[in-house]
């Protein structure tokens, strides 16, 4: 039932996946700020160190983003799929929580020049 080409394809996909994981996991660091983006525009930037609940209301949609003990989670969303609410809390740079139906993105950024482009000019 399984042919040689299947195994080759399996290995190719597996190695690609591992390579992508290594690259994407490699550049995460402790974050400082929580950036909330709605519909491609920055809605607000909040320090990760202060506990608070951010209520994002736009175009009849509501999302509650909770910052507590240095981690951020989406605690409420009125979207249909609830994927964002089920996403694990985030704390490191390059982590994000995305609510596609409401077009809300929560990201973590760092105060230091974490961006490679800044350093290399």
């Amino acid at each position: 039932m399984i042919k040689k080409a299947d195994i080759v394809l399996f290995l190719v996909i597996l190695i690609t996946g591992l390579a992508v994981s290594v690259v994407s996991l490699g550049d995460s660091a402790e974050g400082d700020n929580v950036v909330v983006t709605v519909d491609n525009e920055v809605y607000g930037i909040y320090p990760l160190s202060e506990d608070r609940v951010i209520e994002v209301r736009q175009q009849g949609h509501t999302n509650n983003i909770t910052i507590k003990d240095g981690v951020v989670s989406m605690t409420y969303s009125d979207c249909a799929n609830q994927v964002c609410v089920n996403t694990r809390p985030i704390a490191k740079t390059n982590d994000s929580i995305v609510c596609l139906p409401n077009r809300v993105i929560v990201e973590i950024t760092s105060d230091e020049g974490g961006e490679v482009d800044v350093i290399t000019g």
Partner: protein
Amino acid sequence: MPSPKPKARTYALRTKRLALSAILAAMAMIFSYIEALIPLPVPIPGIKLGLANLVIVIAIYRLGFKYAFIINCVRILITGLLFTGLFGAIYSFAGGVLSIVVMYLLYRTGLFSMVGVSMAGGVFHNLGQLLVACLIMSNFKLMSYFAVLLFSGLISGILIGIVAAVLYDKLPHLNV
């Protein structure tokens, strides 16, 4: 004088194909619905079994690319209208089109078994959805989900492929 017999046979064949396509489209829709009803207990978005892909793989082998493609489009459009909303249908559509094209190309090479074809389909379905999500949100950081979705697509594709291969042999071989 041309005999009417071959024409009648062509029409009968077309009707059979149409009926089989309709049955498969309805089945794919029901599978999508069942999947939406029973979410997998994982906290990562986009991970699902892809039961509907079972139907599409069998359609590619039984009816060819054209029918399988149309069955997939009908399924996505109807499930979009009924359950997930048209916005969700855009993602399904991108994933569905990319995965069916890749699956058909692999099938045409003749090198792969159903398991391999379905495995690639699962991975490329997730990739297509993720690419559209990146485009819509104009945020390529979303690609960090790629590794997770790649592995989930790989595993679910293999499982679906095994089921499809077993089913394909058991299904009655209609002359269509």
